């Protein structure tokens, strides 16, 4: 079992898939000669050449659209944005083309394409480089939205995303590319649409995804010490949502806190809370609470930014509230 950094796990997934299937290519800003803005694609140019690992100018709408056209005629592009913040200038391509081409053509054209980039805040990057796009893309049927916390899921879910016949929005994190974790040596995939129960418990469900998994992990350890047992659900896929896992857990605990980055207003947490009250109303012992970014565009200063982001203490406070403590 190898210890891989997340960037290495992502790279291994792409490299294995590109060796297996010639129709896959990686395209984006600085992916080739620069070896990737975050070194995810390091060395890939050398192995695959500049027709399969392709640098682009700063032209997100242009190269996102190029990927989509190529996908329509049978190629399987991986399009890397330097960050999801920059995908907004390609929003029309992703929403109006990627999400809709299959149905608008009556099912004739499929778009097997993966868009990947870091999502959410890093540190001190200010308002225009810190957004979370989770709810923006999860809003639209026709897209799949996949994310991960650890190296093994990064590897297995990226492979599944590349193999999927639909446009996949793949959410990474600048803050975790260097984190190490175990990945089985044998080639394998992790299925899209399946949550992962990271800890079993009976008092409260905490639902999260992406790098907030690490904050929930810290909070859970402290809560355990206080004698509170947590059912800790890492969603991994936002669309399609693993509703079964969600309802099963909340039916067991009767209490739920959703932790995610991005704004609280119309965020994915709101969707989860709404579904829980629709389906699990009779099981709920307390309102579903959300711990998210404070509802402001990201400020620059360290103390302000810290006040914005979810942290273990805020999660513990929310858990205490749903437990009536």
């Amino acid at each position, binding site marked *: 079992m190898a210890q891989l950094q997340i960037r290495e796990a992502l790279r291994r997934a792409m490299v294995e898939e590109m060796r297996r299937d010639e129709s896959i*290519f990686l395209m984006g800003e600085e992916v080739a000669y620069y070896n990737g803005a975050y070194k995810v694609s390091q060395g890939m140019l050398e192995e695959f050449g500049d*027709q399969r690992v392709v640098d*682009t*100018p700063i*032209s997100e*709408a*242009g*190269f*996102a*659209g*190029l*990927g*989509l*056209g*190529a*996908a*329509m*005629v*049978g*190629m399987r*592009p991986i399009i890397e944005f330097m960050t999801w913040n920059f995908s907004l*200038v390609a929003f*029309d*391509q992703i929403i*109006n*083309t990627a999400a809709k*081409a*299959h*149905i*608008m*053509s*009556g*099912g*004739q*054209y*499929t*778009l*097997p394409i993966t868009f990947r980039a870091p999502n959410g805040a890093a540190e001190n990057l200010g308002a225009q480089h810190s957004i979370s796009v989770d709810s923006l893309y999860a809003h639209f*049927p*026709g897209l*799949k939205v996949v994310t991960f916390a650890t190296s093994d899921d990064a590897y297995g879910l990226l492979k599944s995303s590349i*193999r*999927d*016949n*639909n446009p996949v929005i793949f959410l990474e994190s600048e803050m975790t590319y260097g984190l190490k974790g175990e990945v089985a040596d044998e080639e394998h995939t992790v299925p899209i649409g399946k949550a992962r129960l990271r800890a079993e418990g009976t008092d409260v469900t905490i639902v999260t995804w992406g790098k907030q998994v690490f904050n929930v992990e810290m909070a859970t350890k402290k809560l355990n010490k206080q004698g509170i047992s947590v059912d800790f659900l890492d969603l991994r896929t936002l669309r399609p949502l693993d509703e079964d896992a969600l309802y099963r857990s909340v039916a067991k605990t009767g209490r739920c806190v959703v932790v995610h980055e991005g704004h609280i207003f119309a965020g994915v947490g709101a969707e989860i809370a709404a579904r829980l009250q629709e389906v699990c109303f009779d099981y709920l012992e307390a309102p579903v609470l959300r711990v998210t970014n404070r509802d402001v565009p990201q400020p620059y200063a360290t103390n302000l930014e810290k006040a914005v982001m979810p942290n273990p203490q805020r999660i513990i406070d929310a858990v205490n509230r749903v437990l009536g403590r």
Partner: protein
Amino acid sequence: MTVPPDLPERSSLPDIDPEGLLKLYQEMLLIRRTEELAAKAYTMRKILGFCHLYIGQESVAVGAAAATPGSYWIAAYREHGHAMAKGVPAKEMMAELFGKQTGSSKGYGGSMHIFDKSVKFMGGWGIVGGHVPLANGVGWAIKQRKEDTVCVCFMGDGAMHQGATFEAFCLATLYKLPVVFIIENNFYAMGTSLDRQSAVTELYKRGAGVGMVADRFEGFDVEVVRERVGRAADYARAGNGPVLLEIVTYRHRGHSMSDPAKYRPEGELEEKKLSDPLLLTKKRLQEEFGASDEALEQIRETVYAEAQAAWDFAEESPDPDVNDLYAHVYAPDGE
């Protein structure tokens, strides 16, 4: 306007013979008649939503189709003519306009979203300029797979001021992709005339800034379109990179069915109708190729019957099954 030095002086297409021209005339007439019936169906509320007619511009799509057999095509929302020229059967297109299960997109697309993979017709797109980057992806695939063809991408003059269009032009030249971009300059983006849209009204000049070979010509004569698009396609197919063509044309109708086009100066439409592509080609068939009145009448009858049959087919076809509402949101798993 002379042919730019980069493009070949003659296309590799064979000279057109009377039979070939008659066929192009028949195709143009079928598009015209099918759309006339579509307009009628729209007023009867059999066709709903938006419906943008191509009447007056038929020579562009039909000439380009004759020049680029086997190519991939991408068009925008005024695409009935392109779809039919590329080989989408009139009845399947009409059924799509009627929102029927037998339509080219099974009733999920509508007038603006005609697709037919079997003839490499890739839409049918409703966001002005948003479809232009897709052509590069098709060009990319053609180049990587060493296919001996091109992607032809149509857009209107209105698409020339969208960022996506400019980005697409930049990438196409950077990667030397086998794409022929065709601007159909009909002088109006909805109701805004060209001189109120752009300080540069010869739109092919936009090519110079990105290093793209560009050409401009009038497109009322289907033979001229065939030949000039043929030159561009030869150039692009040979691996020289993309070509930008500005084809000057004119739409006889308003932007959409709800537009009476009152913004046009008096007399403009009447003057432009003198160069109606159907009139020009008919005249040439009669005067230079000696086509008889009977032969032309025979064609008219055939075409009118086919267009009417398309209407009947659409009318009699079943609505889409509501149980299939979610059938095409996602493509099935597996490779």
